[in-house]
């Protein structure tokens, strides 16, 4: 039984700082991840996401601060034993078969041979790679390689998973399969630490997200609360059966800007409820049928942009 169950935190990070020469990569980063949570770590390129993951997975050491994985210091063999890692730039061994890659990882985690074979079989089937299990990985597509790399992170049945940009550059099917697997793993009680650029992914998968910019945490909250706290522009999205000039819509009460998006319009406003009523009344008055009408609050992406740009403008 992991010691994380004593305090209910799978990951505890306080004042983590790392320099590369004179460059301050992360600056007093602190956060906690509860056991069983999916925690999103968001930030623009070069913000310090991968550096943080590398410290937490014991690949590099921090210059100061503390990182605990299930109460064990990050990098400690006990901490590594209960974690599975999908590094951002990691590859499988392309000269080995998919099957052999999984067995290699299982052996490095000390899994007994029979169990390792069974788990490898199950994972290869679940990841849609079973038919190609004996082929060298160099013949796999990018999506297949990334699925295999996820399998390599899972073969030890870890309590905590670190996934650095797991769906970056993947085709829709592979990306979808990954997301389904992550949701399933979370349901089974795994703690997942996920870095991503994909706001939809973070929104769908994460219980909590932290946004890091220029090495500093600028926000930590649930995706929904972050989104609602953003002082972004609200909007109403509408599509009509028939044509309407955007200039006409721009003259409606409360509309600050009109944007055409394919077969629909997005109308920005400070009073989305009132504008929706105005739009319904307007369409009835001119005999236009509304196909769809949606009131939109700021998205997680808006929150991300707002927080990272605000930080940028302070520098």
């Amino acid at each position, binding site marked *: 039984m992991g010691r994380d169950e004593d305090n209910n935190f799978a990951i505890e990070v306080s004042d983590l700082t790392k320099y590369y020469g004179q460059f301050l990569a992360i600056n007093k980063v602190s956060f906690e991840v509860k056991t069983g949570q999916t925690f999103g770590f968001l930030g623009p390129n070069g913000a310090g996401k991968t550096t943080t993951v590398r410290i937490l997975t014991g690949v590099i050491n921090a210059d100061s601060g503390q990182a605990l994985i299930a109460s064990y210091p990050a990098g400690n*063999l006990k901490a590594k034993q209960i974690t599975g890692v999908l590094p951002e730039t*990691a590859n499988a061994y392309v000269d080995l078969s998919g099957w052999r890659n999984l067995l290699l990882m299982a052996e490095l985690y000390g899994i007994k041979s029979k169990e390792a074979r069974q788990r490898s079989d199950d994972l290869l089937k679940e990841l849609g790679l079973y038919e190609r299990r004996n082929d060298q990985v160099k013949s796999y597509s990018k999506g297949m390689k990334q699925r295999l790399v996820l399998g390599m992170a899972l073969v030890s049945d870890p309590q905590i998973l670190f996934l650095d940009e797991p769906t970056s550059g993947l085709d829709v099917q592979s990306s979808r399969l990954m997301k389904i697997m992550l949701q399933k793993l979370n349901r089974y009680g795994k703690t997942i630490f996920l870095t991503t650029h994909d706001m939809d992914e973070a929104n769908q998968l994460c219980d909590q997200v932290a946004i890091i910019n220029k090495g500093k945490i600028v926000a930590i909250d649930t995706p929904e609360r972050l989104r609602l706290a953003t002082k972004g522009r609200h909007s109403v999205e509408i599509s009509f059966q028939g044509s309407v000039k955007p200039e006409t819509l721009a003259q409606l009460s409360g509309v600050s800007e009109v944007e055409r998006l394919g077969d629909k319009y997005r109308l920005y406003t400070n009073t989305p409820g009132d504008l929706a009523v105005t739009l319904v009344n307007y369409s009835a008055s001119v005999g236009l049928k509304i196909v769809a009408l949606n009131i939109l609050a700021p998205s997680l992406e808006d929150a991300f942009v707002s927080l990272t740009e605000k930080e940028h403008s302070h520098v």
Partner: protein
Amino acid sequence: MSELVRFQQQFRRSLTIARKDIQIYYAKGPVIIYGVLMPIFLFLAFTIGRSLPADLMIPGLLGMILFFTATAVSPIIVPWEAQARTLERLMSTPVKLETIILGDILASFIFGAGISIVPIIIGLTLGITIASPGILALAIILSSFCFAALGNVFSTPPTNTPATVNMIAAGVRFPIVFMSGVFIPLDELPIWGQNIAFISPLTYFIDIARNLMHGQGHLPLVIDFLAIIGFTAVFLIVAMKLHRRTMPRRI
């Protein structure tokens, strides 16, 4: 968990890493060129046309092949893994850095010790006798491990280009071969040449091989073995310390 159990666990994982290295790196071009072809051609270049007796020639051939093969695999593994982006994953698994390094050295050691059988068979075919096969086998095992550890030291500069590491390794390998009594027995070297020869680990292996095949060595066998063990310890310590410093810079 006791220290002994932890040590056994890490050693088993070193063997896993060594097996992976054998499956991947033995067939790589630089290993074949530097580990097999280079010593054969170098030896032929220096022996063809000279009338050396087999019991003087075979120890030199054995020493050179053992040295080149045992130092052929270990230098390229770490830079190759860093370049192929497999190193970060390996470092995130529950293995110590020393476990990874030992695995790489073991893969190189097995390659060196295994291929050394070829010159021994050639020697036996040519009619040489080995005074004590057991002592020769021990010398091959210890020396192959020593040379593999030296090969690993070559890979410590934080470059991820195997060709650069091979260039560094070649810059050390060739002088060592020339100063270790491979082509000229130690007794025939001038005093200054002998003094230089003593700073090479290969010297001591060739001295053991000549002692056992030619019946006459320059140093007592005990001194040769102690020197090889001493060099091995130094190479292991240097490799571990330097890798600990440079490994994070490869990622």
